[in-house]
């Protein structure tokens, strides 16, 4: 939710001098820690409890997911480069890096779509067993967050193309970045816990 104009109250006075929207995003991220934490609890509690296969060790493709993980990590790099460009009002570079972030996000999502269809082909559906249910719910929730981020970034990109994004909007880009990096950070945890600690 982006409140574009500063509120009347904000224009007048801000006790800490920190932007309202940035505080909102950090508090939201705090709340998201509990959301992903609860999903992670579900995944870990049910690990090894499926009564029928396929089981994780038969399906998880580590080299493939390493590549998509790398893609998502690099998208975070694009994001910080985008913010740095917008802050110095270099909108040509800013546009480029914002678009690159979104595209890498899309590539990650494509990888996830491939992985999901592959699993379904191998016989693991949402309702097959506890592994399927908890895996698809956890990684699916993360994927949905990535998708929201991609739409958000593309919106910024379109605004930039129309000349409606400048260094005056650096705060908006920074907040988008906070969201994007958090989604990346969640994946760092999921990558290790789901794929490497089978």
């Amino acid at each position, binding site marked *: 939710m982006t409140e574009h104009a500063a509120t009347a109250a904000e224009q007048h006075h801000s006790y800490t001098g920190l932007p309202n929207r940035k505080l909102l995003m950090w508090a939201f991220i705090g709340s998201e820690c509990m959301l992903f934490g609860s999903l992670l609890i579900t995944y870990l509690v049910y690990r090894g409890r499926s009564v029928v296969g396929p089981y994780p060790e038969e399906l998880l493709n580590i080299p493939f997911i390493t590549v998509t993980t790398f893609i998502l*990590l690099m998208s975070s790099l694009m994001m910080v480069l985008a913010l740095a460009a917008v802050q110095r009002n270099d909108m040509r570079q800013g546009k480029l890096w914002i678009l690159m972030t979104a595209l890498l996000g899309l590539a990650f999502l494509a990888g996830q779509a491939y992985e999901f269809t592959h699993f379904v082909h191998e016989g693991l559906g949402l309702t097959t067993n506890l592994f399927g249910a908890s895996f698809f719910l956890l990684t699916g929730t993360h994927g949905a967050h990535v998708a929201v981020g991609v739409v958000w970034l593309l919106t910024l990109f379109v605004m930039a193309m129309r000349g409606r994004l400048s260094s005056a909007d650096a705060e908006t880009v920074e907040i988008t970045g906070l969201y994007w990096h958090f989604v990346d950070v969640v994946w760092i945890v999921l990558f290790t816990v789901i794929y490497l600690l089978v």
Partner: protein
Amino acid sequence: MENSTAQHEHASVKTYLVVAAVLGVVTAVEVAIFYVEALEPILVPLLLTLSAAKFALVVGFFMHLKYDSKVFRGLFIGPLIVAVAIILAMLALFGVFGGGAGGA
């Protein structure tokens, strides 16, 4: 509470590139460790440490928490501690660490 003056002391583009390189390398190391059988006994703590290091790098540098106001740090780290504590408690309750109070 402090003012946002600290905000202007941002990481440079060079720092970002270094951090990204480290993130890539650590990920490669994680995957490599996974395939080394000799490391099997310490695999879990090792991987969790490396993962935590990546987590800290992204949060500290890309999200600027290292340079930013203490208020943001509190808003993030407080909830993170609660979440991690509850995850650990639940794993103990369900006997995921082996034995313990769990096995319900």
